[in-house]
Structures are given as structure tokens and as C-alpha cells.
């Protein structure tokens, strides 16, 4: 099998200039003889670093990665729009790049004329365009509007026309950069069908996308770019899986960092002056206390006669984390310290969603545990066997207080966790459920899409 795209140790370094450079003018550059010096960058930024990729003809490669990971730069390198700083790029056959659709359209002239000019820009001859013209217009679904100036088109029409021209260039190598979001559902399907047709006809496709499901379904191979480097390549399912795990891990870190910030802020306010946080005269309804239990502002207050020293969340494997799968178990471990023996305490928990709606709240008193004694370090664990929440971000209230509500230590929304789910249902709570269908009602399970 011959090679369609070959990248050998390709690096692309963008130059970044200092502030000064931006205001430099030709005159000042000439006067200070800094013309040459100023053309040297103050710092550089590697968009793509030492990437080698080979795509055999007829294969489809999906490129995934986070924003700014170098995917689009890679595509532009393959398209020849930018030249690599180091390394070599070889592409065999005619390329068509679907990077920005309708990039060359002139708003004032008609769709018809734009099709011709755009086609010529993409390397077709006039005769070829004439032959494919009807097909292009039909594909774009613009029969009625083709003679209207392009400036009167909606953005969807504009994109569809751009896509239709680009796809009818009949390239050997098709480069696609996240352009499937161009039209309604129907048009997207048509695009996918067109890609499938390309595949059948043995064309090579390079697909940059955030749609991981598309990569799994459609690509022969996946390339995961991370910070300009090749992170992994190979079987799409495996690479996508590794990528998702990585994304979850970084979400985890972000949540942990966010929580740490919130807790630090809360601690910075209260611990030295617990008395000011709780006014003994009106112990419960104090201004800074839980005056409005359902107002979602982060904070910490209480007398600290009993202190919550740490809160840990863990999933079924027992390791601490912040991202959990829906319908798996979640354990909240609350570490407490009571310097003096204490006989009046209630431990409570509240779960809030991102909108600040209380999803669930309980405490040991409600559940009819009567406090007997706490002294020294202690731990309370709250386990949900099945976390039946829909996908989203949730925040946690954790508190220990007297039976009458006098707070020892109240942690308001200081802990964040995220629930992930394969099912995109809506709401807050997912009741355990099943569907049953009588005869005369048939379904098949559609493929899971993420």
C-alpha cells in the first residue's frame, strides 16, 4: 500500500514578539537599525513538536486532542498552508482542505459565480466545475438561492455551499477540520455519507475533531495530540479511551485545585476569629451563619469546638478523587477532631448541583442516631451504594453542629465532584428504571455516541 501522507520529525515553531515589537514601525525600525534584530523573535512557541506520522493511502486518520494541542496546525502543515520549521511533509495526490468553508467567497457576487471562483481556487478547471455544478448545488441544497449574492445567505447556507464545493474537488487526500457542525442534522448525515463514500473509493482522510464517537466509528486509526506532541497513536477505540481517561484526570486536578482554593479562602477568613463568625446571642440564625440554608455561597463558619479536618471523596476502588461514574458507589469520608469530649453533635451532609439546587440533604439526627460521645480524632463515612445522579458538577456541604443547630464547623459548598454518565438524560436524579415495550412497538439500541 502506498503512502498518502508522511510527516517526518515535523516541528512548527511560531514566533512570539515582545510588546515592543508590536508598536515598532518601519520608520523606527529603520532609524534604530533594529529591522534585522526585530525580526528575530523574543520567544518561540512550538505548536507542533517532532511529530512523525504516516498515513497509508485509503486510510482514515482521526486526530484528537484538547484545544491548543496542535491539531489544526498539523492539518495546515499537511495542507501546505504553513511550512514546517523542521522536518518534512510529503503528501501524494491532490489535497482538498476543509478548514474554513467558503473562505474565498466574495459576499457581493452570486453563489453561482462564487462556486466557480472557489472551485478554481481549490484547483478545478472551469470545465470540471461546469460539469459538477448541478451536483454541487444539489448537495448544498441551494437550488433556489444560487443566483442570490452570497451576503444574503444564512451562515448555514454559506457553510453548506463551501462544503459542497470543497467536497466536489474530488481530492485524493481530504483534510477535515471540525467542520461537521455546519448544518442541520440532515446535512451532517449527508456529509458523513460523503466521507464514507470517499473511504469506499480508497481516498485518504485526515479528520480533526472533538467528536470522539466519530473517531471511534469512522476512523481506521487515531492520533492523540497533546501539547504539540504525539501522545498516542493506533486503534481508535484504545486511543480515544486513553484520551477520555486523561481528560477526566485533568478535570479531577482542576476540581481539586478549585476546592483547595475555596477551602483556603474559607480558612483564611474564619479560624482565628470563630466568635465573630457565630454570634452567641442568636446561634443559628446569625447573619454569617446559615441564615439562608439554600443560598449557594461558599464559606466556612462555626465555633470549631469540633473541627472538620478533611473531607475525602472516593469511588468504588476506594481511592480519593473528584470524578465519579453515575450509578457507581460514592463514599464521603469526614475527618473530625474534638479536642474536648463532646456529647452534643450532629453530622450532616448536603449535595447541591451546579445551579445551587439542593439534591439531597441528611444528618445523623434526622436518621435517628443519638450522639453519645466524640473525643480526639474521628472519622465518619457516608456511602451511597449507587450514585443515581445525572451527569454534571455537584458541590457538597459538610457540617457538624449541635442538636439545636449551633455550628461547630460548617463547610458550605467547599467540595466539588463531577458525575460522568454515558446516558445523557436530564434533570438531577436518575431513578432506577427500565422500559418495557409491548408487541407492536419495536426498538433497536442505537450505537452509543459520546
Amino acid at each position, binding site marked *: 500500500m502506498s503512502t498518502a501522507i508522511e510527516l517526518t520529525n515535523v516541528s512548527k515553531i*511560531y*514566533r512570539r514578539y515582545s510588546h515592543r515589537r508590536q508598536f515598532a*514601525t*518601519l*520608520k523606527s*525600525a529603520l532609524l534604530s537599525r533594529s529591522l534585522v534584530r526585530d525580526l528575530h523573535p523574543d520567544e518561540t512557541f512550538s505548536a507542533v513538536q517532532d511529530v512523525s506520522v504516516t498515513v497509508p493511502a485509503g486510510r482514515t486518520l482521526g486526530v484528537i486532542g484538547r484545544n491548543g494541542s496542535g491539531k489544526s496546525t498539523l492539518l*495546515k502543515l499537511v*495542507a*501546505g*498552508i*504553513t*511550512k514546517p520549521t523542521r522536518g518534512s511533509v510529503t503528501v501524494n495526490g491532490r*489535497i482538498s*482542505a476543509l*478548514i*474554513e468553508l467558503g*473562505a*474565498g467567497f*466574495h459576499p*457581493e*457576487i452570486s453563489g453561482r*459565480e462564487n462556486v*466557480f*471562483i472557489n472551485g*478554481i*481556487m*481549490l484547483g478545478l*478547471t*472551469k470545465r470540471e466545475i461546469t460539469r459538477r455544478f448541478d451536483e454541487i448545488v444539489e448537495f448544498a441544497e441551494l437550488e433556489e438561492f444560487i443566483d442570490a*449574492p452570497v451576503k444574503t445567505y444564512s451562515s448555514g447556507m454559506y457553510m453548506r455551499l463551501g462544503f459542497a464545493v470543497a467536497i466536489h474537488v474530488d481530492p485524493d487526500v481530504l483534510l477535515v477540520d471540525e467542520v461537521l457542525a455546519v448544518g442541520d442534522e440532515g446535512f451532517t448525515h449527508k456529509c458523513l455519507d460523503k466521507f464514507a463514500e470517499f473511504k469506499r473509493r480508497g481516498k485518504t482522510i485526515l479528520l480533526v475533531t472533538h467528536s470522539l464517537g466519530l473517531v471511534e466509528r469512522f476512523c481506521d486509526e487515531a492520533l492523540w495530540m497533546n501539547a504539540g506532541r504525539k501522545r498516542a497513536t493506533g486503534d481508535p477505540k484504545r486511543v480515544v479511551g486513553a484520551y477520555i481517561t486523561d481528560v477526566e484526570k485533568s478535570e479531577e486536578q482542576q476540581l481539586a485545585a478549585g476546592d483547595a482554593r475555596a477551602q483556603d479562602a474559607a480558612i483564611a477568613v474564619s479560624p482565628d476569629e470563630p466568635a465573630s463568625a457565630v454570634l452567641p446571642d442568636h446561634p443559628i440564625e446569625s447573619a454569617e451563619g446559615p441564615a439562608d440554608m439554600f443560598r449557594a455561597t461558599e464559606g466556612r463558619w462555626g465555633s470549631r469546638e469540633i473541627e472538620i479536618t478533611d473531607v475525602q471523596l472516593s469511588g468504588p476502588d476506594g481511592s480519593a478523587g473528584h470524578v465519579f461514574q453515575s450509578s457507581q458507589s460514592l463514599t464521603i469520608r469526614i475527618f473530625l477532631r474534638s479536642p474536648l469530649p463532646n456529647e452534643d453533635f450532629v453530622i450532616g451532609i448536603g449535595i447541591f448541583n451546579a445551579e445551587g439546587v439542593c439534591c439531597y440533604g441528611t444528618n445523623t439526627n434526622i436518621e435517628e442516631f443519638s450522639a453519645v460521645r466524640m473525643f480526639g480524632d474521628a472519622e465518619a463515612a457516608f456511602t451511597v451504594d449507587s450514585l443515581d445522579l445525572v451527569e454534571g458538577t455537584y458541590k457538597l456541604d459538610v457540617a457538624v453542629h449541635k442538636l439545636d443547630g449551633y455550628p461547630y464547623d460548617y463547610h458550605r459548598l467547599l467540595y466539588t465532584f463531577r458525575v460522568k454518565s454515558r446516558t445523557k438524560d436530564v434533570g438531577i436524579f436518575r431513578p432506577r428504571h427500565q422500559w418495557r415495550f409491548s408487541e407492536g412497538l419495536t426498538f433497536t439500541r442505537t450505537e452509543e455516541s459520546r
Partner: protein
Amino acid sequence: MFRNLARLLRYRGLIQSLVARELKARYRGSVLGFFWSFINPLLLLLIYTYVFAYIMPTRFAATEQPKPFADPFPYALFLFCGILPWTWFASSLNESAGVLISGGNLIKKVLFPAEVLPIVTALANMVHFFLGLPILAAFLAYYRAPVTVGELAWFPVIVLVQLIFTIGLALLVAALTVHFRDIRDILANVLTLWFFATPIIYPWKRAPDFGKWFVNANPFSHLAISYQEVLFFEGPFGHWRWLLALGAASLVLFLFAYFVFDRLRDTFAEEV
């Protein structure tokens, strides 16, 4: 560089359709449409004639009367011979300064030969120049200008030299403006100065002595003088040596400009 230059030939279809698009798009939506290509030079002519023939006529009253023309000096015709090509030249450069930046989408998102853009600008303005020619012809006929076939044969040569010269400068201006946006502002002023340094509103002979070398050193002078000699003044076309020399220089300028453009090409996608 020469490979790219050869490639340029393959883009002639693209250049052709882009020029056509440019012309179509320019007057789309205006009532008079293409007529503006005629009207604009006419209006300009009217203004200059009014100012220099009626408000400040002194210098030209002293001008020796060109032979074939009866009194008075047909200043409008003289002016027209210079202004029409100058408009082509000046608008080409002015537009070239912004053409890579406004066409940034093409350069960044499509594999597109950037040099096509300034070339299209120069060519589109040339078409406007051609559209102005019928009016010039009408003026020439009206004043019974001493145009001979032999002299007229030089006309395409002058146009060709001007085209090469204009494209050369347009490439240079376009490429450098990407890196130094100030050129756009400087250029407008330079062109104003250049206009007055060129014997367009005054005959070359009337240039002050100390300014003659200045006028001679100005490449566009020779184009203007050539147009005037061929179309306006009587007698054989005596300026042809200058014209051919300018033609050769323009070719060198074009190659140099293309070289610079080619060297800077890869930076365009990042800078625009």
C-alpha cells in the same frame, strides 16, 4: 523562485476569474454600475481643469502653445493623458497595501498563491484604465489631436511597461505591508507627493530647472511623458529610449519584488 514564477502561469485561469469578480463586485449595488469607471476619471478631470485652468492659470498661460492646437491650450486633454494612467497606478498600489491582510482568510485557510492578489489588483485597475480610454479617444477626436498610427503603435508598449512596473511595486508593497502596517498610511502621502513630482498637471518642459533631475529620476515621469507624446504632442515619439530603459528596469524591479515576495511568503500565513 523561478519554479513559483512558472507556476504563476498555471494560475492564469484563477487570476482571470478573480479580476472578473473584482470588477463585478466593485459596482454591484450602485445605480450607475460600470459607468463609474467612466465617470470617475471625468469628474477628476473636471476638478483639475477647473483648478489649474481657471483658478490658477498663470503658469500655463505662459506655456508655448503646442503646435496643432488652436487657442486656448487644451489643458483638459493634456491632463487626461496623464491622469488616466496615474489613477491606474495609484489605485493599484493603494489597494495592494491592504490586499494580503484583507485576503487573510484565503492565505490562512486555503492553499492559495498569495502573489495572485496584488497581481489581480493591478490587472483589475488596468481594466478600469481601459474603460476610461473611450472617453480619452472622444476627447482626442474632439480636439483633433495629432495622433498617428505609428505613434499609436507605441501605446501598447507603454501600457505593458506600466503594467510590469505597477505589478512589481504592488508585490513589494503588499509583502512589506504585512510586516509593517504603517506602509498603508505612508503610501497615501508618498503617492500624493509622487503625483505632483510627475509631469501630469504640468508639461515636463515647465518643470523648474532645479526640479528637472528630480522629474527625470522619477520612473513614472517617463510613462506620463510617453503617453503625452504619443497622444497629445505633435511629432515623432522621441521618448522611446527612456521608455525601453524603464521597461528593462521594470523587469528587474518585478524580479526583485517577486524574490522578496517569495522569501516572505511563508510568513504571511502567520502574520496576516
